């Protein structure tokens, strides 16, 4: 039966090459946009270099302080001290890394300024993340204890500061804001879209200007908590919540605030929480995203529906014959849906090729440094799902109308 349907779908495609071109062009373009968006979302939220452990990582990035009437609110990153007390002590976690949000600095080479992003981290940072060391190694506890002026730099900064022809830079010094740091390692850089791992230079948190000794709850640091396995995430979250619940009111600092909200969230939840504070906000957010996706898919789908519906008459005789010989409306409904999905998948195959080309250009263009957009299995499966949804969206209505045609009338055509 399926072969019969696909044979017909193929023949219908060949019947009018121009119509087929227009249809496939529309489908391909729509699906390419959706596939590139999917790949970009995967780039943002998926587990990629150097945060390859995102599936078992929790992010403690924001402390929110408010009052019970919700009239005033203050939020921002935590202090090193806070994370040391309440995150570093988590027993259910495998490791906890603390780092600050990247800052801005300058370095000068031959009188020319290089704008830099800098980050202060602990030693665990290099275990929680999966940085690829092209040269040297990360700093260790001894470097931290001694407050050594050492730095790990990215390959891009190495090339910019020391020149591309330099054989090795480990052991050389780099002058940042008039302080000389010894380069201890060179890593392949992280894209700026991964804000907690992205930087040009990484210093031990005991290096100058890190402000890690600031007291109080708020500061400039965030933590990545690595669970032993993804299934342990709820236990780690529960333990962190219990730590937070035990914080005495006197530690809250400002008297105006009597409510403290600080969560260990998965990366995606953490991202969502920057826009949404309540379940209601979340529903609104999902509704807006859903609407945007529906618009992206819906408008071309509606167009395809129109084209398909207008071609019903061309297939009327076939519908009449099939019904006369015993096809129930449901079978015809499925036939046309399957045909539409088949066509969508042909468009999807072209879209996949086009997406590969587009993401190759995005990755190579340098718009996002170290961009690593890709079509991996989740992106591929999502793309298949998108094709299916698009096929259904554009196929159901014409299929329904076709299947409802009256036999005697269909055979008159």
């Amino acid at each position, binding site marked *: *039966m399926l*072969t*019969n349907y696909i*044979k*017909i779908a193929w*023949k*219908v495609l060949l*019947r009018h090459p121009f119509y087929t071109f227009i249809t496939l062009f529309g489908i391909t373009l729509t699906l390419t946009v959706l596939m590139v968006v999917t790949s970009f979302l995967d780039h943002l939220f998926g587990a990629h270099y150097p945060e390859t452990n995102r599936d078992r990582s929790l992010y403690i990035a924001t402390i929110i302080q408010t009052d019970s009437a919700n009239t005033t609110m203050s939020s921002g990153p935590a202090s090193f001290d806070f994370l040391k007390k309440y995150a570093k002590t988590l027993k259910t976690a495998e490791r906890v890394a603390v780092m600050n949000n990247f800052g801005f600095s300058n370095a000068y080479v031959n009188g020319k300024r290089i704008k830099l992003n800098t980050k202060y981290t602990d030693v665990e940072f290099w275990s929680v993340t999966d940085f690829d060391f092209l040269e040297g190694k990360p700093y260790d506890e001894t470097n931290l204890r001694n407050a050594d002026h050492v730095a790990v730099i990215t390959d891009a900064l190495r090339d910019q500061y020391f020149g591309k022809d330099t054989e090795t830079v480990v052991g050389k010094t780099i002058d940042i804001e008039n302080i000389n740091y010894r380069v201890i390692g060179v890593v392949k850089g992280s894209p700026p879209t991964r804000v907690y791992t992205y930087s040009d230079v990484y210093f031990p948190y005991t290096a100058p200007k890190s402000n890690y000794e600031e007291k109080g709850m708020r500061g400039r640091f965030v933590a990545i908590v690595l669970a032993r396995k993804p299934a342990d995430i709820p236990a780690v979250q529960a333990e962190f919540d219990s730590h937070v619940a035990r914080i005495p009111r006197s530690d809250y600092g400002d008297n105006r605030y009597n409510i403290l909200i600080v969560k260990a969230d998965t990366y995606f939840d953490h991202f969502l929480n920057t826009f949404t504070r309540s379940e209601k906000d979340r529903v609104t957010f999902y509704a807006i995203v859903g609407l945007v996706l529906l618009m992206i898919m819906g408008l071309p789908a509606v167009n395809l529906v129109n084209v398909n519906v207008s071609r019903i008459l061309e297939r009327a*005789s*076939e519908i*009449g*014959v*099939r*019904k*006369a*010989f*015993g*096809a*129930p*409306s*449901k*079978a015809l409904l499925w036939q046309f849906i399957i045909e539409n999905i088949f066509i969508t998948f042909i468009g999807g195959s072209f879209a996949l090729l086009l997406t590969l080309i587009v993401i190759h250009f995005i990755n190579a263009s340098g718009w996002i440094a170290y961009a690593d957009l890709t079509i991996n299995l989740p992106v591929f499966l999502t793309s298949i799902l998108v094709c299916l949804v698009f096929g259904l969206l554009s196929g159901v209505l014409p299929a329904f109308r076709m299947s409802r045609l*009256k*036999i*005697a009338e269909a*055979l008159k055509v």
Partner: protein
Amino acid sequence: MVHGLSSMVKKQKRTTYQHAMIKLQNVEKVYRTSSIETLALNNINLDVKKGEFVSIMGPSGCGKSTLLNIIGLLDAPSKGHIEIDGSPVERYTDKHLAELRNRKLGFIFQSFHLINDLSVIDNVEIPLLYRNSSAKQRRDAAQEALEKVGLSNRMKHFPKQLSGGQKQRVAIARAIVGNPEIILADEPTGNLDSAMGNEILGILQKLNSNGTTIVMVTHDEAMAKKTDRLIRLFDGVQVS
């Protein structure tokens, strides 16, 4: 030659018919638009016995095709009662009607209604697609049906590569592939020359001699006379 064959076949045919295969009581069909109401069939009462070969004649627009569509469950009457092989069909759902058409009825149309995008054998297989038969069973049955109409050498051809007579023979193969007990033919020879028309009639007579009940709409008096019974319609009314 074909004519001689059909006469011989007719002589061999059983003359005693069994129960009513098709039963129509007080059937009426009205077509309504916003401004006009047309009575296409008026109080039709008809019994077609099992194994009978009935032809329907009448001038254009008298309701012949409408009657055939109603018998074939392709259209619903506005009023009246229909039984197919003893089953009243009024309360049948779309699914049940489809199943009844698939199992009991086979159709032959004047304009063949073959699907041009499918090969001859794929066209013939269509009724079997809606049964639980395997691809091999479908292929075997379709080959057998095409052999019966003398077209086993054209299985891979497409309808556009066939003559009118060949197309109608494919349509007959499609109508008989599921071994239906009733064949409804709407002017099956209308688009064919007389020699080809006689050949098609010969095939139908042979099917009828094997027990298939046939109802045929025709304009051709000579053809109609070769069937067991002739029903005449005029302005939607059965006149004989």
